[in-house]
């Protein structure tokens, strides 16, 4: 008992780091740690290995080919198109979610009536599956034989006198501006068929960003803003010099969360377009699925998966390390 008291007095220095309870603690977390070690890190290593073999179809033996598959996929027009599509999707999706999320959060924070109702409606799509979202938006963006015999929102536009807004949406094959660059097997630009997919994704996720920003706004002490107002700052100045900088950590978190969802996007695109028209909305997540499980090109599929992993890791790992550092400092 006496020993225990000294323990609690200087817990950090004096606790022997191994005793019965600590052993139990390690034992309790061991299964999870082991599962993650195998199912995450082990399998990633395995996939990395597959990506360096020539495994395709029902081969009995495979041989090591180094980075050949990576060269192959990066040289195919289809994968280059995938990358272009992913960049376009990610940029538009992130920008729209952040802007709309911040706008809605600021509006809701401005003391509106029925705040709870607005908030609930803005957030509810987060509860749905991307598959549900995809099924519904697929029909909203089905263009029909426009402009004369439109369906979906084209029809809605026509009926409300906004007929000039009609477009080919998910069937639009154009890439704007569609530059060709020597050595690239895809055209540079925005594939217009991606826009409806971005709209559906923003519909699903912007409420989440709003919720994050709202939590951030509510965390800013009113006194700071009030002090600035007393000093003669306008509302816009208060927003720009106090509110926005204080929301920066939230923006960072939102970019990480949305970014990793965006870079992995699969379900929504499968349901809404299946990658069509052409490969104009196909992304690496879908390409990996197609060539691995439909064409049995396991090695190339693994190479695509590893590229996805590296891209996500480049985004997430610095954030995780940064988070850990700040946490230790606390």
């Amino acid at each position, binding site marked *: 008992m006496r020993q225990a008291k000294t323990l609690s007095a200087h817990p950090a220095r004096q606790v022997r780091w191994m005793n019965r309870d600590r052993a139990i603690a390690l034992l309790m977390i061991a299964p999870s740690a082991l599962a993650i070690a195998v199912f995450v890190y082990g399998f990633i290593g395995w996939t990395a290995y597959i990506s360096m073999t020539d495994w395709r179809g029902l081969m009995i033996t495979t041989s090591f080919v180094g980075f050949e598959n990576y060269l192959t996929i990066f040289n195919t027009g289809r994968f280059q198109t995938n990358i272009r599509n992913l960049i376009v999707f990610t940029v538009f999706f992130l920008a729209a979610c952040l802007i709309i999320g911040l706008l809605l959060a600021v509006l809701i924070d401005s003391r509106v009536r029925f705040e709870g109702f607005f908030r609930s409606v803005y957030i509810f799509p987060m509860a749905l599956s991307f598959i549900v*979202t995809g099924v519904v938006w697929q029909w909203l963006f089905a263009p029909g034989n426009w402009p004369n015999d439109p369906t979906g929102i084209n029809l809605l536009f026509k009926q409300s006198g906004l007929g000039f807004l009609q477009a080919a949406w998910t069937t639009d094959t154009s890439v704007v501006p569609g530059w060709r660059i020597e050595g690239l097997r895809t055209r540079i630009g925005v594939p217009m068929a991606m826009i409806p997919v971005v709209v559906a994704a923003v519909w699903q996720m912007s409420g989440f960003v709003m*919720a994050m920003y709202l939590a951030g706004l509510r965390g800013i002490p009113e006194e700071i803003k009030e002090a600035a107002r007393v000093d003669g700052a306008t509302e816009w100045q208060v927003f720009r010099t106090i509110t926005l900088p204080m929301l920066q950590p939230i923006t960072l978190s939102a970019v990480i969360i949305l970014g*990793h969802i965006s870079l992995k996007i699969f379900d929504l695109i499968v349901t809404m377009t299946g990658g069509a028209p052409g490969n104009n909305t196909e992304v690496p997540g879908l390409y990996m699925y197609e060539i691995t499980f439909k064409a049995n090109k396991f090695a190339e599929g693994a190479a695509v998966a590893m590229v996805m992993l590296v891209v996500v890791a480049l985004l997430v790992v610095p954030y995780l390390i940064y988070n850990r550092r700040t946490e230790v400092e606390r």
Partner: protein
Amino acid sequence: MSGVAMPAPKRRHIHWSRVIVYGVMIIFLLFFLLPVYLLLITSFKSFDQVSLSRMWELPTSFSLESFNRAWNGGEGVIGMRGSFWNSVQLVVPATVISCILGSLNGYVLSKWRFPGSETLFTLILFGMFIPYQSVLVPLVEVLREIRLYATIPGLILVHVVYGIPITTLIFRNYYATVPNELVEAGKIDGADFFHIYRHVMLPLSAPGFVVAAIWQFTSIWNEFLFGLIITNDPQLRPVTVALQNLSGSQFTQWNVQMAGALMVALPPLLVYIFLGKYFLRGLLAGSLKG
């Protein structure tokens, strides 16, 4: 959802700026509700009223034909009834197990820290962000090897394992708010690891369990990729895969697809409506510290 705790009431402006605020908010409200409107009116239309050129018109009579077809199948449509049961069988055990694991891990990582425990936590967290494409082929191979491929227990195992990072995060952050003094007091009284867990932590854990359970329930119910790859058998597929099949087939009328979508959306929507506060907390747990 509360609208309380508003410090320092401000002067009321009834200016045109307020009109703009409400105007913008209502425009977005319409944007968010438009798909819901289409979903509802279409699902309740009878087959003879379903025409794409009149898709925005309200149904003239109330019909459950679409739901009947989407649920029970018939005329080339595979009903979703079976896959609903599959999803329930999958979601319930997976949610329960991953909550228990998350709670234990969170307890260890917040109250029984050891050298390297922060690193371990970061390594576990990384598992939450990986694209699952980068583990799929080995996963299928291993599941085949242990005879769990194309089985519901196999899918449960997968969801439990890949659910460890988020549930651990939720519980670790939740337990971090429990004062260390409570645990230290327990240790001084000679209570061991499990005693403190059962008598100190668990009684305080209800909100943590609700948040983690809601998170796991909705994300497993809504998940698609694992369901698609691991249940190669149409008899075993979860609802999202069944819905995708329903919408992928050219022969299915679109009102049946809409009814199917509504049915898949309903369970997580009910959770959101009745437990919205906890749902939101789970959402934010994945993004905000503490």
